[in-house]
């Protein structure tokens, strides 16, 4: 699972609704893999407004990845920034491990890069 996707996911267990706790989900015991991918300028620029930057900073810090603390002005011309973003959100894959909710403690397992986000019946 790529970090761009993780940035779009929150905990959805019944009654787990505190926005500060249910998002972003925290990684636990993860195995990462860097996979080179074609640099997709148009996509990065178009997606940037949809990314929660503060959440991304929390996550990348957790994983030991460096990103600037804020999005630069004239970002469309800032190649260095966009390339760092590309490496972080497109090329970084979480292969195994889990995502934990700080609010309710639910653990979502990731296996072979695919997260399982089915809920048990008492959680819906």
């Amino acid at each position, binding site marked *: 699972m790529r970090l761009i996707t993780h940035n779009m996911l929150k905990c959805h267990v019944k009654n787990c609704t505190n926005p500060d706790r249910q998002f972003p989900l925290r990684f636990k015991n993860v195995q990462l893999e860097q996979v080179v991918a074609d640099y997709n300028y148009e996509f990065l620029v178009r997606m940037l407004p*949809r990314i929660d930057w503060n959440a991304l900073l929390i996550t990348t810090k957790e994983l030991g990845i460096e990103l600037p603390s804020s999005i630069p002005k004239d970002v469309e011309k800032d190649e260095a920034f966009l390339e760092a973003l590309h490496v972080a959100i497109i090329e970084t894959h979480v292969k195994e491990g889990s995502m934990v909710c700080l609010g309710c403690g639910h653990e979502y397992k990731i296996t072979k890069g695919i997260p399982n986000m089915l809920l048990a019946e008492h959680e819906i």
Partner: protein
Amino acid sequence: MPQFIVYFAQYHEDFRLAELEALSKLENEATKLVRRGILVRNIIEYWGHGSTYEELFARVKENPEKWADFKTCSFKFNVEAFGRTLTQKEKVAIINTFKFLAFEGPIRMKNPDAEFIVREEYPVTNNALQAETPAMIWFGRLVGQGSRELIDKFDVKKRRYLGNTTMDAELSLVMANQALARPGTLVYDPFVGTGSFLLTCSHFGACSMGSDIDGRQIRGTAGFRLGVDGISANFEQYGVGDRVLDTAVFDICRNPWRSGPMFDAIVTDPPYGVRAGAKRLGRKDGTNPDISFKIVEGVENYKREDYYPPTIPYEMSDLVSDLLEFAAEKLVVGGRLVYWLPTVADEYDPKDIPEHPALKLVANSEQPFRSWSRRLITMEKIAPLESSHKLSTPEHNPAHKNFRDRYFS
């Protein structure tokens, strides 16, 4: 003002204009307009037409200034007939009648600078003999070709991984055009199955994501051609792995997406309940909820690796309503929802399709089968979602309600 003739394929008739309209949102230049077209063969710059060759020549001769651009370049002529087969001899004879154009350049069969097309339309006859003379003849210069060759490239029989609900290549490609999938956009399929739409949308440059309540198809532990690690095998096969971003396992009714618009398109073939059981998380009345909490091998059942939460059937009209509400929230303005709606053909009413103030109906194309049909519906988000917005469902029972039961009756 130049005029053009678009020549469509004779398949999926009800889908052709809708696809062309979608393509016109992506390109406004004739040469590029039909480039991605799957139901379009080519587009021709109009030079003349007539019910006889004399009429045709008279019209062509009205604009001799057009011919000057092509006096010395390499060229070729193609003669095509619809409703009749012409012999090579007949074709050559027809080409020779255009000598008045006085082109001086070399004739080149492969990659000429200019290609001219004569197209004869023969009337449909009831008897076995073909009609002798055409009803109409069209003439012009080829300016663009469609992409029908992609149908063969994406043929499901060639895919490394497929399942029994995999959508055929031709329609999967048309859906990518309806969705306006293009570089920079993000497409999502909430019933991803074997990933056909992620494949075709990402082929046209979009990035894509998919989810499904059934992880087995995604992971490759169910479906045909096991042992290839699931649908990622197809994305690698077609070189779109960099743009198919992720797949995940969850119930779209209980989805973990963060709130607010995030997708440029939602493209999906929801389960109708006929082959793939349409299901959602939940427990039927009268069954035992304690099973989830039972301790098995020291761990509560619901925490075990192989635990499948109980499911209940997902009725079709509920599914469609939920899908529209999801799209109204999660699409960006200008984004598109493209989905299949199964229906009982002679009971269908256009009012069956629910309406939402944030979504506008853009296209509705029918693919008929024997007793039922399905419709490819395209909707576009035209305004931000407001709390006052309410989905309006038809007062009558739509033809797709309880579709599974109607199909088998």
